[in-house]
């Protein structure tokens, strides 16, 4: 590699380098910060993310392949990275007070989140199965630790252990698929794979390899049949981490899924049938099981499974609109899901856990504004216009019908009618019950800012989707 090529490579991956370096510096600095001054860590972490974001946007002008085809900084990657930055910054803002309440506000917490971010960024940019693997592992290893961060609580430990074991198995499956691909095609680069295959793309060996890779990735996005970890991990992990995982790593998983599926090799095989089945079953399971949940976090876990299913429909649709619809869906989902999680995090104050849905009975009576925000997020999650959640679903359906998958679209809407039930059930609890006790939400300025921002996104994208749609469409066609 020449010096010029190396320079180009470093330039292309500058944001990742910034985040990793920042994380390392914070790890050292964190040891020097005295107790009670952890505010500094939050702002420093946010600063690191913002610098990286600035770098990403400044480099966004052109496509920059790097590291001999292992990595690329293109519009597709930029779109996802912006989503990741957004999610991470909002998680930091939500974390301050919560981490203090739970006693987990040490520097490692913030450093691990930054490292997770770098893993997700590598995933979004990776164009080789091995660099995908590196990013994936970096991301999940950090989330394993973060899941178990409430080390006093058995629930959190159990979740982390489950996550590690199941995650390890799925990574193994993924790697096995990669090794099969390498054996059959002699390369792990996504672009070259298709070119080297001369024979039938429906070769059983290749199909097997693709299925293994898909299985590994499906685990990360929490789709059926690799969804079992989701409810336990979401329930056991610190709520801030749950909020983060439900949008960030999930979006990263979808970024990889889309990149792999944009590949002509995979597109030629009939994998879309598998994806369509996965999508339908995932959505059905998420929606139906969520109906009977009493725990708010568990309900949101199943809701996130259902949403992963809906986004999967976009993957099944394929084509430029299919890809763009998934991307837009993930962006919108980040806003509304972080919003509703922000409320749950805010309710955690003193002895009040705010994890049971019944805890919210009559919330609208004393806190009109916050209840209205919840209403907004919940109706958006249910996909009722004029919220952004509706437009996200609408665009996926457009992509499906465009490709002729009308039956899939019908299945998708019928299942989202089921899903609507449990969201409006929460609305019912907050608006139509009498309060049993007083509420004392920990509404710090940081949490308030997060809620205001997510609410603005949820309603703003719903009313004026044109700009965001164009962004997703430009990013989806690549280059």
């Amino acid at each position, binding site marked *: 590699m020449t010096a010029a090529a190396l320079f180009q490579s470093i330039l292309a991956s500058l944001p990742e380098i910034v985040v990793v370096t920042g994380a390392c510096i914070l790890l050292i600095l964190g040891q020097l910060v005295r107790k009670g001054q952890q505010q500094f860590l939050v702002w420093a972490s946010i600063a690191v993310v913002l610098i990286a974001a600035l770098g990403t946007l400044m480099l966004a002008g052109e496509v920059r392949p790097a590291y001999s085809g292992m990595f690329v900084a293109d519009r597709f990657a930029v779109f996802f990275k912006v989503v990741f930055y957004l999610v991470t910054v909002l998680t930091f803002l939500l974390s301050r007070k919560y981490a203090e309440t739970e006693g987990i506000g040490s520097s490692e917490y913030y450093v691990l989140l930054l490292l997770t971010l770098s893993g997700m960024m590598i995933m979004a940019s990776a164009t080789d199965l091995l660099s995908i693997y590196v990013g994936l592992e970096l991301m999940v290893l950090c989330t394993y630790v973060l899941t178990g961060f409430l080390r006093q609580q058995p629930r959190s430990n159990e979740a982390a252990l489950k996550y590690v074991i199941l995650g390890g198995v799925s990574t193994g499956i993924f790697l096995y698929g990669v090794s099969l691909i390498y054996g059959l095609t002699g390369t792990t680069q996504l672009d070259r794979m298709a070119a080297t295959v001369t024979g039938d793309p429906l070769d059983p060996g290749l199909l097997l390899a693709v299925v293994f890779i898909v299985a590994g990735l499906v685990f990360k996005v929490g789709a059926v049949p690799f969804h079992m970890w989701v409810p336990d991990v979401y329930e056991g992990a610190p709520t801030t981490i749950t909020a983060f995982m439900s949008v960030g790593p999930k979006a990263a998983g979808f970024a990889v899924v889309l990149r792999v599926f944009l590949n002509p090799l995979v597109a030629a095989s009939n994998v879309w049938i598998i994806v369509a089945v996965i999508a339908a079953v995932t959505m059905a399971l998420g929606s139906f099981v969520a109906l009977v949940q009493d725990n708010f976090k568990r309900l949101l876990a199943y809701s996130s499974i259902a949403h992963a299913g809906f986004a999967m429909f976009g993957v099944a649709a394929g084509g430029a609109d299919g890809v763009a619809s998934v991307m837009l869906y993930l962006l919108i989902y980040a806003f509304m899901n972080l919003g509703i999680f922000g409320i749950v995090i805010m309710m955690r104050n003193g002895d009040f856990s705010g994890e049971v849905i019944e805890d919210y009975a009559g919330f609208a009576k004393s806190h009109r504004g916050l209840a209205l925000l919840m*209403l907004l997020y919940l109706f958006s999650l249910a996909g*009722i216009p004029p919220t952004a959640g509706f437009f996200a679903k609408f665009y996926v359906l457009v992509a499906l019908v465009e490709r002729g998958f*009308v039956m899939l679209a019908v299945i998708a809407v019928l299942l989202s009618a089921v899903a609507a*039930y449990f969201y409006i059930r929460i609305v019912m609890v907050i608006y139509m019950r009498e309060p049993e006790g007083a509420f004392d939400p920990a509404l710090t300025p940081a949490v308030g800012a997060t809620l205001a921002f997510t609410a603005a996104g949820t309603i703003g994208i719903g009313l004026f989707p044109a700009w965001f749609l164009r962004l997703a469409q430009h990013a989806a066609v690549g280059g």
Partner: protein
Amino acid sequence: MTIPLLGLIVFTPAVGAAALMFVRNDDVVRWMALGVTVLDFVLCIAMLGGFDTSTHEMQFTETRPWVPALGITYTLGIDGISAPFVFLTALLGWISVLASWVAIDRKVKEFMVSLLAMQALMLGVFCALDLFLFYVFWEAMLIPMYLIIGVWGGDGRVYAAFKFFLYTLAGSLMFLIGIIMLYFHGGETFDIRTLMAQDLPFQVQSWLFFAFLIAFAVKVPMVPVHTWLPDAHVQAPTAGSIILAAVLLKMGAYGFLRFSLPMLPEATVHYSTLMLVLSAVAIVYGGLLALAQDDLKKLVAYSSISHMGLVTLGIFTLNLRGLEGGILQMFNHGVTTGALFLSVGLIYERTHTRSIADYGGLMKAAPVYTAFLALFTLSSMALPGTNSFVGELLVLSGAFAANLAVGAAAVLGALLGAAYLLRMYRKVALGPASIGVRFKIRDVNAREMAAILPLAVFVLWIGLYPKPFLEIIDASVKHLLAQVHGKGGAQ
């Protein structure tokens, strides 16, 4: 630059709702809500003043790009078919506020915000000329209506609110798929006027016809997807019932008129017999159910099913008299049933019972009230001289021209209507004063009079001189018929 009158009409209540959120005092909230709805009504009258009855073209159109990448625009406009319902919605807006003046005593602000939001969305539905925009208005209505039923309703309100929400949502979602299919088959546009000019293959038309039918049938409601209506009506507060009966139910029929007939003419003609039969079933079945009710609101709710059956019957006769009668009957049903629910609400506020058995001899206690009740009951029965007579006569003559058996069923429905309404009136107003009303009942006061009198005026006005109303719809209905038969073959 001209004033975007329709945009003003649609968004005035929305702005009012947003402004109300910052008001603390309940009385100020009430007066502000009344002010906003009256202003909206005045704007609406100004609009009707400039309405040209000689053309079927869309009027007062305004358009702006919204989501250019998908061909979605913000386009509003009205013709003779939508104009009466814009007016009806605006009229019932302030009547609903008056009806909730004292009946809603907790969370007044939230109620008025929901009511105004509802008003804006309903007006939007009737004005939208872009399918996507239409769907956004159509579906967003679920949110305020769910709250109105669920928060301020009766004892079984939560169940009723869920039932309403899920039924309507499930119906609408098929409609959404239909819209997207129409988008791709109709040249990637959501513009309603362009889509009307498309000539779709019959296969596609049939598919879309049933996708639309599910959504519209739930809203109308047609048998067998009517079961949400009695629950929603019984549990909803008075204003909620008025809005449901007077405006929401019209949207299903409006959907048929705006989409199914002009866009899917061949399928409409092909399946019109099925629709006539379904309508006839609704007329008779709704009437029979109403006959068996003891609850006043339930009785009116089931009578609504019967009357809306008459409306869809008129529409699917696909002849001029039937269609004009159907549309006039939609308007009439809005006025009359809205008034009946208002009357039931007024008496319920005094006695807190809706059971017919508890009433009797109301005429002596509250003569003015009973006189109004008599007028609306007679109007609901379509007595000559009242508004419904004109509409029903037109529908029946259209129905007999289209199908003898269905016409006979409609007449049977009218007979049943006379039976259950007269029975209701006799038990409530006549006879000896019974237990429930032995305590002194105050007659209507000035506020209630202000709410009920305009409706009575319309009952008599349309009944005695329907010409101006029929003139508004005439050109558009003729054009609609040309659209249906021009492409769907002569019937």
